[in-house]
């Protein structure tokens, strides 16, 4: 697989103005482009680079799991490059990389082909020749729509679980308003588990989401970080159990009160938000 990577500044401005002056979503958009049209790719890469986006260019299709591990917002793919396997690739990516905005940007095509691509799961279809600025605008639109339509719009809403308040907007968890002093990675782990409340997440899945790479067999990172999170939570919320071990599989988040204490109040005003997130996990 040939790949050129032009990951630019990892830290982008909180909000990036596009050419029309409209401010798009905060944080850098992570984009992958599968295309061999060097002229088009060069201009596109230069422009998205100037906007602070992180991007990778592939001249051959990467595996779907590799795309997943890159935690991309959007993918631009020229189906003509993939030949007869293009549809299969498109279907695989749309099915296995949830939340990824997929934009087909290819040469002339029939109505039937465009309809097929969009029905498979592509979010947009652009016909070449096209202006890179239009492609960028369409990527922004797709990412914006994805963000709105994902139940994770409540991603920034606090999650309440037992005595814990998990605040994505502050990358921190609190007990009684007091920070439990999680590191960024510890927070991401706790947040991931809490969003999937009640569901067992496998170690590989946790690692892929939190570390952004495939987990090497035998890597104990997930176990070590679960241990660290448990210790910090226990210090501030003694007696409660939040993270449950499923031996040989992974971990499940479910707050359990100490036996002599009443269970979590079902009428907590923030419960709705956490339930909404839970159902989306």
């Amino acid at each position, binding site marked *: 697989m040939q790949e050129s990577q032009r990951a630019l500044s990892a830290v982008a401005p909180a909000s990036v103005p596009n050419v029309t002056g409209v401010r798009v979503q905060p944080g850098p958009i992570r984009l992958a482009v599968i295309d061999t049209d060097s002229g088009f790719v060069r201009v596109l890469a230069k422009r998205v680079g100037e906007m602070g986006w992180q991007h990778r260019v592939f001249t051959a299709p990467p595996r779907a*799991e590799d795309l997943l591990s890159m935690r991309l917002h959007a993918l631009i793919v020229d189906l003509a490059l993939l030949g007869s396997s293009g549809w299969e690739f498109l279907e695989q990516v749309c099915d296995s990389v949830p939340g990824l905005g997929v934009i087909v940007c290819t040469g002339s095509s029939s109505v039937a082909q465009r309809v097929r691509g969009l029905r498979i799961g592509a979010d947009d279809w652009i016909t070449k020749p096209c202006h890179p600025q239009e492609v960028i605008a369409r990527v922004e639109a797709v990412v914006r729509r994805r963000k709105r339509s994902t139940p994770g719009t409540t991603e920034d809403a606090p999650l309440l679980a037992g005595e814990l308040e998990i605040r994505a907007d502050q990358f921190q968890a609190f007990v009684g308003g007091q920070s439990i002093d999680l590191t960024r990675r510890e927070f991401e782990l706790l947040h991931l588990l809490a969003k999937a409340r009640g569901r067992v997440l496998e170690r590989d899945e946790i690692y892929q989401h939190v570390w952004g790479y*495939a987990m090497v067999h*035998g890597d104990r990172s997930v*176990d070590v970080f679960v241990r660290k999170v448990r210790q910090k939570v226990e210090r501030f919320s003694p007696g409660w159990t939040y993270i449950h071990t499923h031996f040989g599989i992974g971990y499940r988040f479910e707050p359990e009160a100490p036996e002599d204490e009443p269970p979590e109040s079902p009428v907590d005003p923030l419960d709705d938000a956490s339930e909404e997130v839970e159902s989306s996990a």
Partner: protein
Amino acid sequence: MSMLRASSTSDGLLALFEESGRNVERTGSLLRDLLDDFPERSSLARDILICEQEGDRITHDIIHAMSTNGSKLDQRDAYELARALDDVVDYAEETADSLELYGVEAPMQQAQELAAVLADASVSVAEALAHLRAGEDVSTQLIEIHRLENEGDRISREAIASLFKSGTDPMVVIRWKDIFESLEQAIDACETVAHVIEGMQLKRR
């Protein structure tokens, strides 16, 4: 297998080798504990560093004893043995140091397994050197060291192969390839100790 009988002139040297063996055993045990409870017991790396310094001191004493006292031990064998024992501790210390140097956050199961193999091999090394000094048979210990070296080789090969699966963080590959290799080299050095002791015994037949 015939036994090496310690003469009065070589006993001082054999006592130093026995001391070196105990130092190897302690180092192996510390490294196993460090990896088993990493990162909670990261401070054990400091104790391993002290063992490494102690190993250097013993090696120096061995070389000094070789040059000043007459001994029935072949000087080349004694030097090879001292160097191999020093290597075990040096590679173990390098492993412990790499954990901090590379900013390792959590251990790998294969590294824990390799450290357990090294700890067991270190026990056999210490026993073999104690038996050597006492003029007792060491064949059981030498066979065990060879077995453990084979076991370590297998674990190390599988561990390194697992790093090169697609999608792995390149930083993980860089860190752990080095750490697996230094662990394997420490185990290999135990086998070198066994080879030298075996050679010394053959010469005494």
